[in-house]
């Protein structure tokens, strides 16, 4: 019941729920119940298992993405921006902008305007145009070890704020992957092959969750993606807190 309400609320489920402050130091917070961990507990996992239910509905409409929900799958459709290997968090959001606090809505928006502005000048196309807060590219395609470097959550937040729906890379650095899932900002999807060398910035692509594939309409090629597994529903819910409320781990 509570869960279904949260479900229909989608991203708005991510609203503050006043929890009771700790009364005595020994008392557990009654509003939070953590499940005993079994093998079925949702993995925040790089080595994601095959999802039992491939249905993924969009968590929100990304600025330039055009998510479409069908009965069995979600698709993201838009222009892609292609980067290489080892895109570290300094390139995603340079340290000088870390004074912006992501939990502050105005500063969240501003973080989007700086997304990927740390890329060196070997990238001739800007990800976000000057004066804009969001990017026209809704899908970022990368190589190995995307998001390496610092633990700054500003990195997935900046991408999400810029309107990125999904990153499709060969592999991820651990903390970036986890931050993407915890915040629900972007889907960190893995490709089975090195598509960053076959796609070009500005290509029109579609990501189909149900089929676990990426279609490049500009080149006409299709690529297999690795299933995101149990991390998918967490991102879909809008992050770990929203997911926990939705599934009853935290009462609403």
């Amino acid at each position, binding site marked *: 019941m509570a869960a279904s309400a949260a479900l229909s609320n989608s991203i708005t489920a991510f609203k*503050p729920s006043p929890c009771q402050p700790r009364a005595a130091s020994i008392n*557990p917070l009654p509003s939070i119940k953590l499940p005993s961990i079994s093998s079925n507990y949702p993995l925040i996992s790089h080595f994601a298992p095959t999802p039992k239910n491939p249905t993924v509905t969009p968590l929100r409409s990304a600025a330039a993405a055009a998510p479409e929900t069908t009965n069995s799958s979600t698709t993201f459709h838009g222009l892609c921006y292609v980067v290489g290997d*080892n895109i570290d968090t300094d390139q995603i959001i340079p340290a000088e902008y870390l004074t912006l606090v992501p939990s502050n809505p105005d500063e969240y928006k501003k973080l989007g305007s700086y997304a990927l502005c740390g890329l060196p000048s070997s990238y001739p196309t800007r990800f976000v145009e000057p004066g804009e807060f969001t990017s026209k590219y809704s899908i970022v395609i990368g190589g190995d070890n995307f998001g390496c470097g610092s633990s700054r959550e500003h990195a997935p937040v900046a991408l999400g704020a810029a309107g990125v729906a999904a990153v499709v890379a060969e592999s991820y650095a651990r903390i970036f992957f986890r931050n993407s899932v915890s915040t629900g900002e972007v889907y960190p999807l893995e490709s089975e092959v090195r598509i960053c060398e076959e796609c070009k910035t500005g290509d029109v692509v579609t990501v189909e969750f149900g089929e676990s594939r990426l279609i490049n309409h500009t080149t006409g090629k299709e690529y297999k993606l690795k299933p995101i597994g149990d991390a998918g529903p967490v991102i879909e819910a809008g992050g770990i807190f929203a997911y926990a409320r939705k599934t009853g781990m935290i009462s609403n």
Partner: protein
Amino acid sequence: MASSSAIASSSAPFINKKDVGLSAFSSQSSFSVQTARQRISKKIVSVMTPQQTQRTPATTGSVKTGMTMTEKILAKASDKPEVSPGDNVWVNVDVLMTHDVCGPGSIGIFKKEFGQNAKVWDREKLVIIPDHYIFTSDERANRNVDILRDFCTEQNIKYFYDIKDLGNFRANPDYKGVCHVALAQEGHCRPGEVLLGTDSHTCTAGAFGQFATGIGNTDAGFVLGTGKILLKVPPTLRFVMDGEMPDYLLAKDLILQIIGEISVAGATYKAMEFVGSTVESLTMEERMTLCNMVVEAGGKNGVIPADKTTYDYLEGRTSVPYEPVYSDEGARYLKEYRFDVSKLEPLVAKPHSPDNRALARECKDVKIDRVYIGSCTGGKTEDFMAAAKVFLASGKKVKVPTFLVPATQKVWMDVYSLPVPGAGGKTCSQIFEEAGCDTPASPSCGACLGGPKDTYARMNEAQANYYLFYRIIDLLLICYRVCVSTTNRNFPGRMGHKEGQIYLASPYTAAASALTGYVTDPREFLQ
């Protein structure tokens, strides 16, 4: 209770690492169980875990399968007899650290999710250390420290290392500086515990035989409210380093060797355990350097078994009882790497990746225009001692601007007060002055990660040109800045300008390079 704690801690210094198998712990198992139970009952303040009538602590000897020390720490912290790589477990957090860059966001999430009046799970287990953007006129940066201060006052946080007078850091007795070094110096790093921080270099604390890793704001917000986090138990890569360490090498060379070997993603999701006679011979600060950079190989945590060196360091720094754990004989490792340290040479990581390994002497033609000694990686007391040793041995002056940023107030004091061995009573600061280095700056993260434009020693110069000519600059290849740095990352833009070239190196190599104006093997001065 008090006596059991005392025994647990006082017996620790006498544990010989090699003897600690199952028997060493079984003799004091009743104490350790008691300590563990006592601790856990305190920890469960806001979260319900499944009821357990009895547990079999992994440390008592009833271990079915051998576990690595990382697995054992996570088993203990999750109240399970054993865990295996891949298990997802809810872990009780012993210490959560945050700083001025990620603290305000974590606090924002905590308040949003747990309520404006919510209290943190334990006011004594949260350590808040402003260190990133301190000596700046950037208003937002200053505001962020104010947010931390207000929160610590409101929550009555026990460990908040505040700074109010930005004009003179020494007027702030509470101010420490770089969080990872301050955590160690203030006794917050303890064997067997779980330490999380909103900073990727939190892994530094693994040097104390604990599980330490970096997390994001949202996870930190969750920990603030519950004291718990869901972690996947990582498999362990084991690095055995034996052989006598040549006197021209430092731990920085060892970790650059390893990252060069396994790449910047070679340890992604994995624990890196460092053992062997060389590691045993390292000081605590050198062990910290080793663990500090595991994240540069993608590692989840780095860990070094606690021993007498660890206990000696902790003596007088903490009164909290701790319980070291060690890998079992039959522990399973994903892979084992062996190094004969006596055969290694001074290394650098060339731009723009920490795994772009090269011998320092192979880069002798690389002209540089600045040297930076500082950060959580290379700004500790011994790092400055090492640099001073090279300057002293050469008797020469530096040929390029040499910036010195002590990590913490304590390090700064050491630089100005500790005599350098063989220098006739001279301190590091005197030797640096005679060598023509910049005056040691106020302790903070400084220019290691760029920061606001007015950050001391930030690589700015090319930036003005960049704005003017940014289409032409990569064609003309002008205005490049080349820095040899004792820091940890050399990705594009890390220290300010995107086209700045950073060579990561040990303090020996950095000092030697300052003396010649080129990337230089320290053996030119140390032999």
